[in-house]
């Protein structure tokens, strides 16, 4: 049965309930090939700008300028990559981004774990108010406070520094709520038993809660890492020295060069996007493997 005829039947079915009921007895199926074809077309269309950037990164400037615009490089060359690596300190940018993002991850894991523990396990007066205080930080867009924050960082002498890139983002209400959710999954008895046995609350947190909440912490770590890695506005503001630029800012500078070389730009773009793309693909594989592992065990 072709996709077109099924479509016609579906329309007929909508018009008339009787027809639909008769047809419902037959299993209704699109042709498998048609489904795959449609999926392939739309998925490739969505990913097209990414694929095109990779493709252009292997073309010479002359080839890019030909008409009609080429899609695949006729004679793939690595010249663009060589030129990008030679002209801008891209490995330094990657290192800067990596360091700043890692610092944010460590900071958020520490502050959010402590705060989430207080919200999940401690009873104290003023809890609702402090909870609201945490929530309210989610209502303040970073861009609305960017001016005073810039002035603060400048006063502290933190322009062009890793502290400047990371410290403002080391606390996160979202991260706190995420970990609080995962802490609340743990049985409360565990806490009561530990406290009764004389363990200090902090030891309980460190030796029991943290090891049992690794999944939640991993989620927070990935989320914090990616959102810092992808920042543009803040690092653009507070870094001026070329050697302190982050990847996103450093690559985008290629766009403002006197003569824009598309091959270079796309080589830079490819180098920046590849790590996060791999992370996405590996994440998917991990997910599939986790599911099948569970199936075998269960």
């Amino acid at each position: 049965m072709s996709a077109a005829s099924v479509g016609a039947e579906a329309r007929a079915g909508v018009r008339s309930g009787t027809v639909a009921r008769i047809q419902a007895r037959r299993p209704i199926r699109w042709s498998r090939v048609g489904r795959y074809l449609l999926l392939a077309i739309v998925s490739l269309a969505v990913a097209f700008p990414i694929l095109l950037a990779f493709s252009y990164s292997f073309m010479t400037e002359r080839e890019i300028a030909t008409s009609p615009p080429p899609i695949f490089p006729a004679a793939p060359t690595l010249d663009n990559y060589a030129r990008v690596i030679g002209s801008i300190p891209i490995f330094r940018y990657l290192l800067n981004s990596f360091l700043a993002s890692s610092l944010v991850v460590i900071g958020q894991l520490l502050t959010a774990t402590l705060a989430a523990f207080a919200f999940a396990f401690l009873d104290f007066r003023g809890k609702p108010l402090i909870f609201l205080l945490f929530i309210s930080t989610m209502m303040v867009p970073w861009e609305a406070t960017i001016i005073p924050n810039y002035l603060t960082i400048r006063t502290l002498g933190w322009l062009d520094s890793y502290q400047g890139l990371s410290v403002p983002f080391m606390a996160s209400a979202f991260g706190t709520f995420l970990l609080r959710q995962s802490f609340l999954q743990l049985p409360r008895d565990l806490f009561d038993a530990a406290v009764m046995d004389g363990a200090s609350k902090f030891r309980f947190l460190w030796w029991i809660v943290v090891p049992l909440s690794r999944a939640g912490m991993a989620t927070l770590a990935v989320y914090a890492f990616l959102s810092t890695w992808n920042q543009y506005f803040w690092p653009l503001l507070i870094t001026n020295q070329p050697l302190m630029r982050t990847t996103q800012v450093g690559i985008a500078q290629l766009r403002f060069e006197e003569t824009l070389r598309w091959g270079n730009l796309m080589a830079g773009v490819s180098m920046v996007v590849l790590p996060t793309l791999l992370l996405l693909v590996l994440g998917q594989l991990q997910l599939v493997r986790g599911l099948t592992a569970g199936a075998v065990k269960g």
Partner: protein
Amino acid sequence: MQTAPPVATLSAASAAAASAVIPGRQPWTRRDLRSLGEALLYLGPSLVLFSAFVFVPLARTLYLSFFYTNPIGNPTTFGGVEQYVALATSPEFLTGLRATFLFVLYSVPLGIAIALVLAVLGNQRLRGINLFRTLMSSTIAVSASVGALMWLLLFNPSLGLLNYLIGSIGLTGPNWLTDPNMAILSLSITTIWLMLGFNIIVLLAGLQGIPEELYESARIDGAMGVNTFRHITIPLLSPSLFFLLVVDAITVFQAFTQVRLLTQGGPVDTTRVLVYSIYLDAFVNFQFGYASAQSMVLFFIILLLTIIQFRFVERRVHYQ
């Protein structure tokens, strides 16, 4: 580019907020104080950072918005609400504000609609469907800056594929980024694409939460394609759709990177959206007071959207 927190966490947070009852005015006992003191040891690091980088800066933004400053950002003369009056009468700012709302209007509903179609396609049970899901949601791995640079190439009038394709069917492609009528639309196209991966992932999760039996029984009752979509899929997906509506709107209101890399606010201020205007006035023109007043406008817009979201999620929790 999206950094919106997942639905579950937000709903949990606001549920807890909803249950937050302010305690009666009982006197503080020594025990109350001790318990609070202990809790503050754990909450302290977060609270210190929030004070330094959220609460105090917000108050300072408000304060600065009442002053004129010197070029290094120190308040010099008190102006009261003069900056706000200046904003309300500035054609430049009003054009920008209009552009901001157009930007949101073009990007959000269409972005969600496209993601919905793709998510439904990706929700079929087929061998190898994960490959297609990964490809469809691949834009989540693309940062705003890199994504904007990819579209800079596509939009290019002489080299770009977009105008070549339009030309090949006999039409003339527009000057995407330099035509005042097109620039905001081009930014929206880029933004829709950037948000697509995140939107698809949220909607796929929502679709997979709809029990299969509902479709089964609908099929037995004779409902088909479009009907089940309208009467089962859309209503049951409405929490995810609403979540995206608010979160995407917040994201677009805060968008800066695409604007800076594609149009720089031009041509003739047609894409001078709020955040870009703050950037220009504060860090290019050094009018920190004037830019702070604009920051407060942005703050109130986002505040309103967040409250709407919390309200809604709260109600949903109550219904359960």
